């Protein structure tokens, strides 16, 4: 059980780091159709 807890926790860490890196260092191009509401600020 403890092994699984470690695996899942480190997978969550990997996913979090990947998400943040993609969000702030390699952002995707903004959609052409986004209006002023799509503030893309977060």
């Amino acid at each position, binding site marked *: *059980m*403890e092994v*699984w*807890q*470690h695996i*899942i*926790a480190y997978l*969550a*860490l990997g*996913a*979090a*780091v990947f*998400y*943040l890196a993609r*969000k*702030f260092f390699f*952002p995707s191009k*903004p959609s*052409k*159709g*986004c*209006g*002023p*509401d*799509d*503030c*893309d*600020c*977060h």
Partner: protein
Amino acid sequence: MSKDIKVALIGNPNTGKTSVFNRLTGLNQKVGNYPGITVEKKQGICRLSRGKKAHIVDLPGTYSLNTTSLDESVAVELLLNRNAPDFPDLVVVVSDVENLKRNLLLFTQIKDLRLPAVLVINMADRMKRKGISLDVAALEKKLQTRIALVSTRKNTGIETLKQIIEEYRCLSCQPTIDIKTIDPEYFQRLGKAFPNEDLYKLWVVITQDVNFTPLQKKLPGGEKSFEIKSRQELKKLQHKETIKRYQFINEILKESYAVDLKAARGLRASIDRVLTHRIFGYLIFFVILLTIFQAIFDWSSVPMDAIDAFFASASEWVKGALPEGILTNLIAEGIIAGIGGIVIFIPQIAFLFLFISILEESGYMSRVVFLMDRLMRPFGLSGKSVVPLISGTACAIPAVMATRNIESWKERLITILVTPFMTCSARLPVYLIIISLVIPQGRFLGLSFQALALMMLYLLGFMAAMVSAWALNRILKIPTRRFFMVEMPNYKLPLWKNVFYTVVEKTKSFVYGAGKIILAISIVLWFLGSTGFTEDYNNAETIVSDRVAGQGYTQYSKNYIASNLEAYESALEAETTDASRIADSLEARRGDLEARALSQEIASYRLEHSIIGNMGKFIEPLVQPLGYDWKIGIAVITSFAAREVFVGTLATIYSVGSDEEETIKNRMAAEINEEKGEPLFNLASGVSLLLFYAFAMQCMSTLAIVKRETNSWKWPLLQLAFMSTFAYLTALAAYQILA
């Protein structure tokens, strides 16, 4: 199956174009009754009969094809480019029944491009009240088009419009006026130089270039030599064209459109006189703002406390229900604490957008734009800058995009650079938690100090924007010409459906958007706070136990034990008078509290020597003069991604290793400045933090959008350097004075 009909939706600003788009497509795009809501084209699908579909593109509002700003040029460029994938089969021109004459100018121009065009006359439900009578059949005949009389408020006329869209092939493409008549000689030469091109289209291309870029850039077959008139001459021709069109419009409206001017105008004019008055106008606006901030604090305290308590219990429950281990701790101390730090602000965010939405819907916001124009001119801004600045109270990103409807590049650049000073919703969580910690709860004239403090911060942001604009106006040497036109919509009761959608959408975007980042950052922070490679970290338990045995507990633990014992003793004395029983119970309780305190001290020591603790200690010298400790320093750095991450970060840091069921606010209130032995969040450090967040450019996405809008890294980097330095120095001054 036949292909989809491509429809472009165009019209003057504030004619309800986006409402027509929403009715046709069933989407819920943001609707507003002040200009600048649609600054990019939006797209949707409209389902017609027999399985047919229309692909609708909602274009930014424009008064004519003689565009003067970037958002307007988006519309014209699409209509001129037959090769564009969205080039329309049909143009739907949305007009407002009360301003039909002005709206028809754009309609006649589009019709003269020989595009199938249909006229939508919106707000038909107001006709009776406004004494307007309209002969639709006569108008259709004169304009050689089909007309849909629509009320998006009452949802009438939309089916007729859909039917007209389906039958678009039957529409006439005959022009309304003969453009050659404004200067026969010039247009004859133009026709000879470009024999295969439509003359009016050529004319629009030429005048587009007059407004934006060097002449002849986009002329079809531009290689051919063609003597072009000077800018002044072309401007004169544009004026002649406008006069000619209005002559035509007057002629046709004389026979088909009548208004009883006596009807209903009196009341609206009287209200306008008060709301836009030189003194009362500002006073009323000020009172409205104050009421809003008061309500934000008063109405949201109960749900906020409930949410805070819920997350504290959820964290405790997870620890009890799941098997012990790293994942359980990550969920309880990292994820739940971090997310709780953002969810707690839902009530206040929702109330803020509820009020803003009601002000927009009622028509009051346009009066604010008008009022502000007067106020802003001395600072080098115009009333059009108000729209981005007001949007900036929600989020700087759409606000920076909304500057596209500002014609003058200098004004636009200044507005882009100063908008991030406006208090956006991401600052709100930081303000609210700090205000509730350091500003006392008393009242002044019925208004709480905390609401007044929040109001002051909003005003401070606005003043910083104004002063920066004034300085930039003097520094930037960019030639400019300015004019300002704003339409005052009629007052009306808010459409509650729109209000509801705005509140839900804005809150959802805040929570989901910020939530993803906060969740990710919370996970990373928790790992950094729960991992260490030093001897101190690995031997924390022994080191702290030895220290407690030798020197006793820290001041924080002593306070914790004493206050809990005091409360417990009072409860016991209410239950029993048996002194020995009270003494025994107190002794047992003391043992329990001391064990908890020791466990807290070990967790705290471990955190201090974890990876994040070492990082925090490294930057501490930089933030210490502002009254912050290393934990706040970490939160300030992580919140560079987005300001609201600040609270989530602190919630996670304070939760690492903690076994206590405690709310975020209480954890922050209990933090002690170890050097001074006083609460870490006191008036001096609190005000310093508030000022730092009021002025700092803590938002990576805003920098990215400023780069996109200015097409250069120079401006966002200057903005970042200026705002960060200014914020640091202000916070430093505030702390040094107040401490």
